[in-house]
């Protein structure tokens, strides 16, 4: 399969008044079309920075990023980026929130609007389209935020701790909903999370970063050998705890080294 995203020796050094901080060092990995890859690592290791760099929001210090085999420097329209906070605009209705990206990118065509409406219908939000964000629950808001991101039809979706603001129950539900949406729409996904079980339950591969300066420590292939795998039945699989243990150990060793 095609490699839609490839990172080659990506490094990032922050310049501050009191010196340099090396955040990322020679990060290499690639993601295939339709794949779901998670990035985990000790807190403060620069996971979110890495995602911001892939999205083009932050500049890298060195290295190369290829999207669809084309070297990319800036914000790419092929990438959708979903943040931890839903950041719905409270003065806009749900519908106007969802088409926000289309408006910004001047792609508010009949066809795209229809696509958005279909997404809203498909994921049970259409009847709320004239409501305001404050009237929706956290899980629904997160789904609205996802549809806003999907509306611009990204090839690659970046999730930055996108579920960690939700309470546990909602989170499990939303993870499943969003997983289904992403698999349905066949969207390549890179997710940053601090939650090991979330990473295992959703991903095809899990990339473990070391502590700062972060490098790729190991890439785990996750395969539950379940038909129609989803985050719910993955959590019930006996293999789940094996994966959990091995990932946990890798993160834990880092903590001791500190």
């Amino acid at each position, binding site marked *: 399969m095609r490699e839609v995203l490839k990172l080659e020796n990506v490094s990032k050094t922050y310049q501050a008044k009191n010196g340099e901080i090396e955040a990322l060092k020679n990060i290499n990995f690639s993601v295939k079309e339709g794949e779901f890859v998670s990035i985990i690592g000790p807190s403060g290791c620069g996971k979110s920075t890495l995602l911001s760099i892939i*999205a083009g929001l932050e500049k890298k210090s060195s290295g190369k990023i290829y999207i669809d085999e084309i070297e990319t420097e*800036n914000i790419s329209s092929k990438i959708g980026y979903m*943040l931890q906070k839903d950041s719905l605009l409270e*003065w806009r209705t749900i519908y106007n929130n969802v088409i*926000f990206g289309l408006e*910004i990118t001047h792609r508010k065509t009949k066809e795209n609007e229809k696509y958005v409406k279909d997404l809203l219908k498909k994921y049970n939000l259409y009847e709320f389209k004239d409501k305001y964000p404050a009237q929706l629950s956290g899980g629904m808001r997160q789904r609205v935020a996802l549809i806003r991101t999907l509306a611009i039809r990204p090839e690659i979706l970046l999730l930055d701790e996108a579920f960690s603001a939700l309470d546990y129950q909602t989170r499990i539900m939303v993870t499943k909903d969003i997983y289904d949406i992403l698999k349905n729409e066949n969207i390549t996904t890179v997710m940053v999370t601090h939650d090991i079980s979330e990473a295992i339950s959703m991903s095809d591969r899990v990339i473990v970063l070391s502590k700062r300066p972060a490098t790729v420590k190991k890439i785990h292939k996750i395969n539950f050998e379940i038909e129609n795998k989803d985050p719910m039945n993955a959590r019930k699989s006996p293999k789940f705890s094996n994966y959990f243990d091995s990932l946990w150990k890798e993160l834990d060793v880092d903590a001791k080294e500190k």
Partner: protein
Amino acid sequence: MRKKNNSIERKQYLRKKTITKVSIFITQVTLVILFIALWEILANKGIIDSFITSQPSRMLKTFMSLSQNGLLEHLGVTCYETIVGFLSGAILGVIVAIILWWSKFLSKVSEPFLVILNSLPKIALGPVIIIWVGAGTSAIIVMALAISLIVTILEILNGFLNTDSEKIKMARTFNANRFQLLTKIVIPANISTFINSLKVNIGLSLVGVISGEFLVSKAGLRIFNSIWRASIPT
């Protein structure tokens, strides 16, 4: 979803909202009436000295006689000056705030100047203003502007700079340019800042106008003071 707004619960909810609104208004009106009545009664009973505080009924009488002397016209002049001062302060303030938001460099450069300008005793600048723009309506409007403009700039710029950075980041993920950030995020997110600053501003403009009128006026509500003085028994 529920049917159109006609469930009993909905009706009760709407009724409750109306009742709250009406009772707030009634309380406000009652407070004003009580205040005036108390003032009148206390002055009548001689508990407070009407030589110093005057008295509503006397003021009303003087007001009536003054209206024959063209009070309405004076009122009009003051209103006009206040509105012009207020509007130009608000519009200029927003424009300058937008420029300063746009350019971090300009905003850093201008910061100490704004603080100094804001701390100037503007009313004391009155005579200088007269020399600059001449004694007349324009001096009064400049006075109103001087008092309200800097506060507006500072307040609105502060609101702009404190716009939820996550929302700005979200818009940036769609590759929004600075103009889009301004019109689609920063301005709509700051509607309440605008309203607050307008509320403060209308008062400040009035202060500016009245103090301007003290210095130069041939017309305007400074005359109100005359009402006050005239209504005090001598």
